[in-house]
């Protein structure tokens, strides 16, 4: 369904895979290729010290399932519930010869571990005069839609995007998830890899072989000439749905999925706006100091003369994520809200 026009086509065998399987594929193949790659976190295998089965969870969303039986507990490490120590250990190990993939389970747990991420990990390379290498991947689930309430549903990507020294990756489909995870593991800098928890079962064709998708290169799941819609993660699917509806009305939307929000492919966005003259940014995060306002700001500053209409942002409201289904559904940007935003700046 998705047209990755700027990705090299991968020859060879491919199959329909979920995002969960695609990330598992990437982890497994990288662990086979490179013995310094390890996985650590809470329940990444599960069942440690228990009377029942090992690998009982394989991560609470099953993303790391099967890795412990193949690579052993030395390389797939169940930790105590100690997020600060998990991130610290992963960062320290990354500085000393390993390539850890640490799991935070829910990105809301960043709060417990934040010093290790932003004061320590993110600053090493610059603060130590370029002498430090921290090939670390921090995986975590983000986003609402699971009725998981305020402390398990946050969309905190803008906070880490704000921090200099971190790369922030947010795949929207299985093909990208695999290629971006491979790139993340091979990258020498700390990566925050954010997986939307409602998307794990989404499928698309995924090549069997390993491939890396470079950071900072946007994808164009829809090409168009009237309006540019920038969306990330879960919102890409909704932006595509909106674009397809609008196409039937004769409104041609270009949907841009930056795939990584740091580095951000601002050139792709600016070039698109040069053609369309109109921009809508869709983001499930809160509106203040968020990714949507950041992208809107970049275009206002660098692409002002291309604009034929005001920039629109479609975001969650400025509240924590509510529990009740009616409230959560109203909280997360909908296709209808994207349609309304586009229509509000298109002629008439």
């Amino acid at each position, binding site marked *: 369904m998705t047209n990755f026009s700027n990705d090299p086509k991968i020859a060879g065998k491919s199959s329909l895979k979920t995002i969960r399987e695609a990330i598992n594929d990437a982890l497994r193949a990288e662990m086979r290729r490179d013995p310094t790659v390890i996985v650590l976190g809470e329940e990444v295998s599960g069942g440690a*010290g228990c009377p029942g089965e090992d690998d009982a969870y394989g991560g609470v969303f099953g993303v790391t399932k099967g890795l412990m039986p193949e690579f052993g507990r030395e390389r797939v490490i169940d930790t*105590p519930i100690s997020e600060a120590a998990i991130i610290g250990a992963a960062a320290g190990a990354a500085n000393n010869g390993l390539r850890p993939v640490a799991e935070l389970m829910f990105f809301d747990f960043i709060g417990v571990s934040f010093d290790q991420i932003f004061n320590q990990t993110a600053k090493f390379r610059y603060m130590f005069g370029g002498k430090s290498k921290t090939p670390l991947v921090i995986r975590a689930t983000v986003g609402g839609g699971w009725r998981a*309430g305020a*402390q398990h549903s946050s969309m905190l990507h803008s906070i880490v995007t704000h921090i200099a020294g971190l790369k922030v990756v947010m795949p929207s489909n299985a093909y990208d998830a695999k290629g971006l995870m491979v790139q993340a593991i091979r990258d020498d800098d700390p990566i925050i890899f954010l997986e939307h928890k409602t998307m794990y079962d989404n499928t698309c064709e995924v090549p069997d072989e390993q491939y890396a998708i470079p950071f900072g290169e946007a994808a164009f799941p829809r090409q168009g000439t009237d309006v540019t819609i920038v969306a990330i993660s879960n919102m890409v699917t909704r932006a595509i749905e909106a674009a397809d509806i609008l196409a039937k009305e004769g409104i041609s939307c270009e949907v841009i999925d930056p795939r990584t929000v740091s580095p951000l492919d601002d050139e792709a966005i600016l070039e698109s706006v040069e053609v369309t003259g109109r921009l809508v940014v869709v983001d499930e995060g809160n509106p203040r100091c968020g990714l949507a306002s950041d992208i809107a700001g970049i275009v206002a500053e660098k692409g002002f003369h291309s604009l034929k209409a005001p920039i629109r942002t479609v975001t969650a409201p400025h509240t924590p994520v509510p529990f*009740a289904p*009616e*409230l959560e559904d109203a909280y997360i940007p909908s296709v209808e809200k994207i349609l309304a935003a586009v229509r509000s700046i298109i002629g008439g």
Partner: protein
Amino acid sequence: MPYQKDFLLKAYRSMKTIREFEERCVKEFEGGNIPGFVHVSNGQEAIAVAACIDLSDKDIIGSTHRGHGHCIAKGCDIGSMMKEIMGRVTGLCKGKGGSMHIADIDKGMLGANAIVGGGPPLVNGAALAAKTLGTKNIALSFNGDGSANQGTVMEAMNMAVVLQLPHIFLYENNGYAEGTAANYGLGCESLTDRNAGFGMPAECIDGLDFFATYEALKVATQRARDGGGPTAIEAMCVRFDGHFIGDPQLYRGTDEIKDARKTQDCLKIFRKRVVAEGWLTAATMNAIDKEIMVEIEKAVADALTAPHPDPATDLMSDVYCSY
């Protein structure tokens, strides 16, 4: 008789209400009436009730993600709780919190908590306020065995000793931190030994025995009220359900839960003891059981017909500033 009859009746009623509430939550979740994911505390009732039975609404408790039992033991209305868990606007938190974030400030219930180790530092604050204002109120944090390994909890324990806060750190050790053995995550042999290392009185008790738990809590509560500072209690117990409802629990032993329900049921142990001692009759408790079933039935029926929140008015309310 070492305990007043009213006390025993209250203890039994509270424990049994938790048991039936939790088992009904499982059914309602499986029936699709409860959104999200839910962590139930059946099997651990004796600890919640022993801890809260002597507390007033001014004494503060902080809870965990497995918080329904603590709420009920602290006196929260089960009707309002069921509405909250079902996401209704007349629930304890207007449907905005849900099972993992349920709170009732008026009852001194500072909230369930979906962040492991999120509660104890806050409960230190409640204890600090009580100490500073000289109210003689106390604070108690419920902690899972897994939370013992969070820095936030260890910092809170140390500070409670340094400031001599009226804070009871009550650990419910059910043997599992999610799907990992408690003694895998704990580097030392004994959590209680580690707790004592912080410099506070620490003991390990049988959390299946209401009376043993109550007696330990009574001493700790009195110590806190008298300005004697914090206490740590590790109550050993059993989790009858999974980490969350629907957890396949592959990590547990064959027949482990079945056996636990047979031989490690704190309610059965309570009933056996009070009947053997001649403190209460089975008939009295059976009559209470029937009343509780009616109350639970009503709580569910009311919750199922309770109004849903309206996004137009409820999504943007209770915020500090609107954009």
